[in-house]
């Protein structure tokens, strides 16, 4: 077996090894890397910095992969020397590794501009996982942070640190941000968007020195001005790591010179990735490097033939809410190039297309990248666009993307980074019985780099696989792709107080029917009604405080605490039912009365005539407490369940919860009011109460878990309140208490509620009581509507004919 040694354990080197393995080579493979980590996705480091992904989630090849393919990996040791005569490489500890064929995949390093003071403490670069961890260790709320460099990486680093609470300024040497991918107008739109996120941008600014005594105090610019800084991140570009090759006498310019077959000037040595220079060009984006990997794999396994051509570069900024896409040539001055532009300053959208010989030649999309795939298709296929000149800037609506995927030819590239075509994906799905995105990624590598084609891949899976499984949801939704936990932290620390604000800063600005109600809940829970409630973000039930029915009418359920009513209340309910021609009056399963079929316009009057508070039967909130008659009348009752239930309902009513919240209190273990299948239940025993949580009798039936057994009614009420608030704060939106209890485990819940320290218990209760102070009976809006037409039907004014009254 011939010995193949790869110096470099990064994306290009390992991708090349993966392709080599596909050729079933007669190689004994060794990978030598100076980072201690297995191969991870460097492109996604900014997402780790921003907390959108964990370090584990960006691993591309885990230890098992190396083992399964008999690849010897030696990590954490830098190679110092190549001995071309002896055909060996030597690492920093003097260990010698012999090779027959050698691949240099040494990557690139952060370029450190010649600025005085770069060696000071708290000056960082952002290039590796270790760099990322170092930055995370420093980041804290209010930390004065300066990022030098307004390119892709600098902006991503800036946003990541800002999400972590840092106070970030971006310094850029040029007149315009991302000047390599955008024109000045595009750069201006980008700058405005970045600033709207709360990041300061200063340009053009040349940094002369980093000042401070040992550690950073600030920056001094060439103009003489100074800027305070506690942390400096340098993201001023990259330089190929070509020193090892240069010292070995290989032909090196800026990078290691390779030909179209990825061969260097030594017939046994090859190079791939950011360390290379091909026809005078060096590389920083992943797609061409993966092409190099494919070509080199063919060359080295005696299938020499495919040649590398550097395709039109495409770059996308990976900052949520900042949509930037640039591809192809953006040089307007090229002869024969026509330019088409559209701008909408209020939307922050700018689009520029460069067309040459009726073919798309390049593009800049800022703020609106909906048509990215259509344009990339045109760019790559070189389609003749003469018949659609009038629609170029606004191509026909994509309609359903799923259909669009079905319409794509098999040769269409789905994953640009890894060059995976539609046909390959479909073939893999059938051959390996793929049903999940995870399997698809493992098999095809599609969507494992920048991840922007994940949506397309998922649509393809949906279209081809009948029993496609959506994987466990870790993020709220595609509009705001953060986990609930992270989002709660963001909303709390960044003091975001409206749904629109969250969507603008951390989302896609549109939102949808999934995230808008979820965010509404989160804001209400965190800010207890001191925020600006946005009714448009709520489901109709919570806009008009009634439950919408299949014919568009509403149902009205007044609160009847503990299921106890009176002749007077019953009379009023009867009168209302007659007065408003209510088609049905129904006894509910929750010991209440439901008036079904009420028109929206009648709701305020119905509520007024009832003179009872809202039963919240329409909301994700506190529904009711079902009780038995307990010691009041029952021969067997040992606890006063009725009055305890009424008190429990009074303490929690009018509050919102992640999902509906039903309770029950029973006066003895016979459990007549079914407290053990409620979200919260009290089961009376002789001399004590059992407080149980997480019961269900809906789609599934689950017996509640015992939270605690207590002696007094007040203790039971407090235990109930603790669990209630804990669920409010930690439950994911639309997660019922029984799923919540199973997810966290009753032990953890006990420890953090009833068995928590006095101080923590008090804090939980304080937050609950503060929310309760702001909570109001929603039906009071009968007199103070949220807006003039909340319930009132609009009547047209009159008709006019072309400006004249009819």
């Amino acid at each position, binding site marked *: 077996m011939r010995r193949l040694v790869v110096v470099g354990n990064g994306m290009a080197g390992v991708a090349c090894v993966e392709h080599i393995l596909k050729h079933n080579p007669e190689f004994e493979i060794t990978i030598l890397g100076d980072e201690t980590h297995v191969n991870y996705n460097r492109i996604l480091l900014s997402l780790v910095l921003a907390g959108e992904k964990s370090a584990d989630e960006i691993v591309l090849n885990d230890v098992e992969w190396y083992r399964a393919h008999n690849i010897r990996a030696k990590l954490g040791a830098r190679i110092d020397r190549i001995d071309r005569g002896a055909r060996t490489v030597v690492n920093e500890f003097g260990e010698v590794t012999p090779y027959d064929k050698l691949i240099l995949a040494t990557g690139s390093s952060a370029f450190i501009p010649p600025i005085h003071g770069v060696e000071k403490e708290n000056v960082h670069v952002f290039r590796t996982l270790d760099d990322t961890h170092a930055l995370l260790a420093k980041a804290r709320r209010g930390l004065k942070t300066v990022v030098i460099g307004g390119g892709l990486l600098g902006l991503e680093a800036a946003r990541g640190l800002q999400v972590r609470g840092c106070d970030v300024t971006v310094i850029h040497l040029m007149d315009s941000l991302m000047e390599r991918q955008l024109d000045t107008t595009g750069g201006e739109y980008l700058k405005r968007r970045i600033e709207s996120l709360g990041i300061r941008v200063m340009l053009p600014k040349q940094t002369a020195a980093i000042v401070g005594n040992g550690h950073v105090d600030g920056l001094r610019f060439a103009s003489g001005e100074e800027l305070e800084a506690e942390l400096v991140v340098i993201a001023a570009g990259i330089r190929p790591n070509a020193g090892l090759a240069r010292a070995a006498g290989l032909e090196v310019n800026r990078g290691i010179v390779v030909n179209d077959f990825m061969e260097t000037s030594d017939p046994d040595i090859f190079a791939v990735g950011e360390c290379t220079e091909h026809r005078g060009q060096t590389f920083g984006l992943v797609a061409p490097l993966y092409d190099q990997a494919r070509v080199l794999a063919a060359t080295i396994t005696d299938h020499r033939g495919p040649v590398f051509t550097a395709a039109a570069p495409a770059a996308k900024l990976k900052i949520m809410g900042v949509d930037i896409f640039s591809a192809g040539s953006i040089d307007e001055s090229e002869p024969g190039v026509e330019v088409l532009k559209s701008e909408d300053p209020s939307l922050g959208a700018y689009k520029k297309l460069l067309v040459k010989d009726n073919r798309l030649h390049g593009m800049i999309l800022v703020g609106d990248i909906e048509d990215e795939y259509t344009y990339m298709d045109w760019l790559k296929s070189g389609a003749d666009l003469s018949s659609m000149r009038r629609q170029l800037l606004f191509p026909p609506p994509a309609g359903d993307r799923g259909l669009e995927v079905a319409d794509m030819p098999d040769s269409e590239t789905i994953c640009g980074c890894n060059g995976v075509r539609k046909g390959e994906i479909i073939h893999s799905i059938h051959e390996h019985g793929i049903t999940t995105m995870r399997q698809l990624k493992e098999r095809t590598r599609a969507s494992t780099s920048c991840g922007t084609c994940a949506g397309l891949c998922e649509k393809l899976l949906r279209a081809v696989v009948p029993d496609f499984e959506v994987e466990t949801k870790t993020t709220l939704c595609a509009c705001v792709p953060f986990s609930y936990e992270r989002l709660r932290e963001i909303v709390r620390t960044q003091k975001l107080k409206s749904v629109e604000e969250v969507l603008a800063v951390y989302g896609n600005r549109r939102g*949808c029917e999934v995230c808008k109600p979820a965010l509404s809940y989160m804001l209400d829970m965190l800010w207890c009604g001191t925020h600006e409630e946005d009714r448009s973000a709520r489901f109709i039930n919570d806009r008009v405080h009634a439950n919408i029915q299949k014919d568009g009418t509403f149902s009205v359920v007044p609160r009847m605490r503990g299921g106890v009513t009176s002749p007077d209340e019953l009379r009023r309910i009867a009168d209302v039912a007659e007065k408003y021609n209510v088609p049905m009056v129904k006894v509910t399963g929750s010991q209440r009365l439901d008036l079904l079929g009420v028109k929206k316009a009648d709701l305020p009057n119905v509520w007024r005539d009832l003179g009872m508070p809202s039963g919240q039967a329409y909301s994700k909130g506190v529904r009711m407490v079902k009780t038995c008659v307990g010691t009041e009348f029952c021969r067997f009752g040992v606890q006063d369940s009725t009055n305890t239930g009424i008190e429990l309902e009074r303490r929690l009513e009018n509050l919102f919860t992640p999902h509906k919240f039903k309770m029950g209190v029973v006066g003895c273990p016979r459990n007549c009011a079914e407290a053990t299948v409620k979200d919260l239940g009290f089961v009376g025993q002789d001399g004590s109460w059992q407080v149980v949580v997480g019961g269900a009798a809906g789609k599934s039936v689950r017996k509640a878990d015992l939270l605690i057994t207590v002696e007094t009614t007040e203790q039971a009420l407090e235990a109930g309140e603790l669990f209630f608030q804990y669920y409010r704060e930690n439950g994911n939106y639309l997660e019922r208490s029984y799923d919540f209890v199973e997810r966290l485990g009753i032990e953890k819940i006990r420890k953090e509620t009833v068995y928590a320290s006095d101080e923590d218990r008090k804090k939980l209760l304080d937050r609950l009581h503060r929310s309760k102070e702001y909570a109001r009976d929603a039906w009071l809006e009968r007199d103070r509507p949220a807006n003039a037409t909340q319930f009132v039907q609009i009547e047209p004014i009159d008709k006019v004919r072309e400006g004249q009254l009819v």
Partner: protein
Amino acid sequence: MTGERVWTRITRTENIPPREGRPVRIGDLEIAIFNLNGRFVTVENACPHKGGPLCDGIVTGTAVVCPLHGRHFDLISGLPVRAAEPSCLAVFPTRVEDGIILVDLEGAYKAIEHAA
């Protein structure tokens, strides 16, 4: 039927809050007028699926989600956003003059009938 359009003056713009819709009944016709952050659009107020009141739906971008079963429709084109459904909404020409929303009730337009 040449030329002259008849516009119905409906209501003041402030009566429709941003990102919400309101129903208006004119004879047998019920329309839903939406405020897309300052841009006003009008569609028929019945979801082609099961007649759901679209005026009560959540607005996402320029689309509305029917409150009954979650069908999505683009409010500008009337086209369904997601499911490959053959049906779409009738869209009514809408404009604003002196703070009043005007709708051409005779000018309903259905994208799919026209496309077919």
